């Protein structure tokens, strides 16, 4: 991996649940994020996947300092940004920007596109002196594929995909090094999703960006990510390079998640094994003891209720060098292929895509 630009360790966010009005006492906590570690290399894309309520968006908010962590460190170039304030925080924030999920609510309807994209310069005037801003904004519009003449229009005059481009332009305005994208395409139509994903791809190489890409759609995450972390109930349960996670998953949750994704190929439906999990995700106020996935796991044994599995290369694979040797938080990790391998002969009219190694 390239030199890490962002190092997250022991990240925790608990929201207290209180009772009483005069004498407030804490009766519990929503454990939204409960000990997350990862590193992001320069120029790399880290995908974080998980179902709703797993804490992936809370992680995103903490990375851009919209939420203060309860515990843990977020080190940007070695400096813990969770402890910063005032001027120091402001200068770090410039380098970590966010693209939000919903392009309909994350743009102020009363501001013109020029004001929206130019607003970051009000806070960081050192990036663009006042007279310069209009041209800067027009450049940005051009970069994200919008007509620079649209600078005086309002958000409602744009379609969903165009609005997301505006959101991306705003994220780029301060020339950040890291962009945290929280479900950036899930509100868009299929044909428009591809346009935005390609744009993000292009911008990454053009501006040497590092991405944290958060999504629930496993196919999109595979497409864009170099490494992937799978979250369940506030923790990362498995992490590795994309081919390790998708082709050689060892954690049962990852296997179930992958097997449940519908593949757009009717031939595949006959010879695909699907693992259907029972029940729903437990409440984050009352996390199961030991392994938090055990209540839905088909392999769970007594040990799983007693011992919290560490996120490390499982003992079985520790001395192996194959793709199964990546971090997985399971006592009984074993390799299982759930995604059909990539050999499909006369697949679609596309040329066979290269194996990523």
């Amino acid at each position, binding site marked *: 991996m390239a030199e890490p630009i962002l190092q997250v360790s022991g990240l925790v966010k608990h929201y207290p649940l209180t009772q009483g009005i005069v004498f407030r006492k804490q009766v519990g906590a929503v454990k939204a994020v409960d000990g997350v570690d990862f590193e992001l290399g320069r120029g790399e894309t880290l995908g974080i996947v998980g179902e709703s309520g797993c804490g992936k968006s809370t992680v995103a908010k903490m990375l851009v300092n919209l939420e203060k962590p309860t515990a843990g460190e977020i080190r940007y170039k070695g400096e813990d940004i969770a402890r910063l304030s005032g001027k120091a925080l402001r200068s770090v924030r410039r380098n970590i920007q966010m693209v939000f999920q919903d392009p309909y609510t994350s743009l102020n309807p009363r501001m013109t596109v020029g004001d929206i994209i130019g607003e970051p310069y009000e806070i960081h005037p050192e990036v663009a002196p006042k007279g310069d801003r209009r041209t800067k904004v027009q450049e940005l519009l051009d970069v994200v594929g919008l007509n620079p003449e649209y600078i005086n229009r309002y958000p409602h005059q744009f379609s969903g995909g165009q609005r997301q481009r505006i959101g991306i332009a705003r994220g780029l305005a301060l020339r950040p090094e890291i962009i945290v994208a929280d479900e950036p395409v899930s509100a868009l139509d299929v044909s*428009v999703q591809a346009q935005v994903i390609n744009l993000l791809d292009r911008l990454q190489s053009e501006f040497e960006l590092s991405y944290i890409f958060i999504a629930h759609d496993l196919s999109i995450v595979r497409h864009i990510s170099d490494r992937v972390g799978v979250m369940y109930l506030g923790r990362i349960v498995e992490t590795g390079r994309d081919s390790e996670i998708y082709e050689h998953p060892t954690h049962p949750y990852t296997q179930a998640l992958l097997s449940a994704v519908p593949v757009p190929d009717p031939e595949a439906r006959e010879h695909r094994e699907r693992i259907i999990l029972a029940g729903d995700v437990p409440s984050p106020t009352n996390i199961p003891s030991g392994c938090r996935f055990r209540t839905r796991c088909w392999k769970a044994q007594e040990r799983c209720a007693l011992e919290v599995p560490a996120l490390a290369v499982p003992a079985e694979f520790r001395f192996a060098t194959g793709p199964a040797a990546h971090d997985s938080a399971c006592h009984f990790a074993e390799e299982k292929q759930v995604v059909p391998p990539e050999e499909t002969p006369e697949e679609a009219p596309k040329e066979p895509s290269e194996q990523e190694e």
Partner: protein
Amino acid sequence: MLLEVRDLQVEFRTRDGIAKAVNGVSYSVDAGETLAVLGESGSGKSVTAQAVMGILDIPPGKITGGEILFRGQDLLKFKEDERRKVRGAEMAMIFQDALSSLNPVLSVGDQLGEMFLVHRGMSKKDARAKAVELMDRVRIPAAKERVKDYPHQFSGGMRQRIMIAMALALEPALIIADEPTTALDVTVQAQVMDLLAELQREYNMGLILITHDLGVVADVADKIAVMYAGRIVESAPVHDIYKAPAHPYTRGLLESIPRLDQKGQELYAIKGLPPNLMNIPPGCAFNPRCPMAQDVCRTDVPPLFEVDEVRRSACHFWRECLHG
């Protein structure tokens, strides 16, 4: 044939003019068969379904032409009270967002039981017993206790099961499911789709599945109708369409989705945006975005060409698309 829609036309009158939401749509479903209607937002897929169910808002909506034949009878000629007897008992609908489709101030038992009170004239006690039975059928654990609970006390997946139970209550011959799993997480989505498919087999129902998700379609459908700007642009058995699409729009859609089992380089993107329904381009509605468009596409509306006995494509160049 259980349901046959013929040349359906629906318009909406708006302040800015007339929006042609459905522009001559024809499709059919037989008992035990699953038809997937695929399209992006604004393609008219939901409006067609609403017209079939008879729940279109009129005005501003207006059905300006076509026939909806259910077991051979044209539903559009029915009076409202006759229509009402068909709705619920003969055909039922499952909506996308279960939380906003259920009444928050009534217990789920009351809402399920209401079907039997109104359509079957049952007593309250019997209706309640039926509600419990239905909740068991869709595998809601502890149905007897949970029948008194309110919608907000259920998780998203459980709520969607209640919606399914409600649709199945009177054992209809046809179910229309409008994006039934879009709001759900993948693992729960798989549970719900499996349940729906199983119940369909058991009751031998016709199912119209409205969706934008090509993955879900490949998993469950027998045949597909792809809609664009209020028209069907391609219809075919599910295997054919994924193997070799005969319309450039279908082809673009298939190539633009990233796949779990493939790591691609750059995604193919259909350029531009779907058209404004008040101002549909002349000729083929897809021509401004189509990589194969020629002069004829800008002037002549392509009819649905017969590709083979079971396949149709509304493209002047379907041969080139199919083989190129």
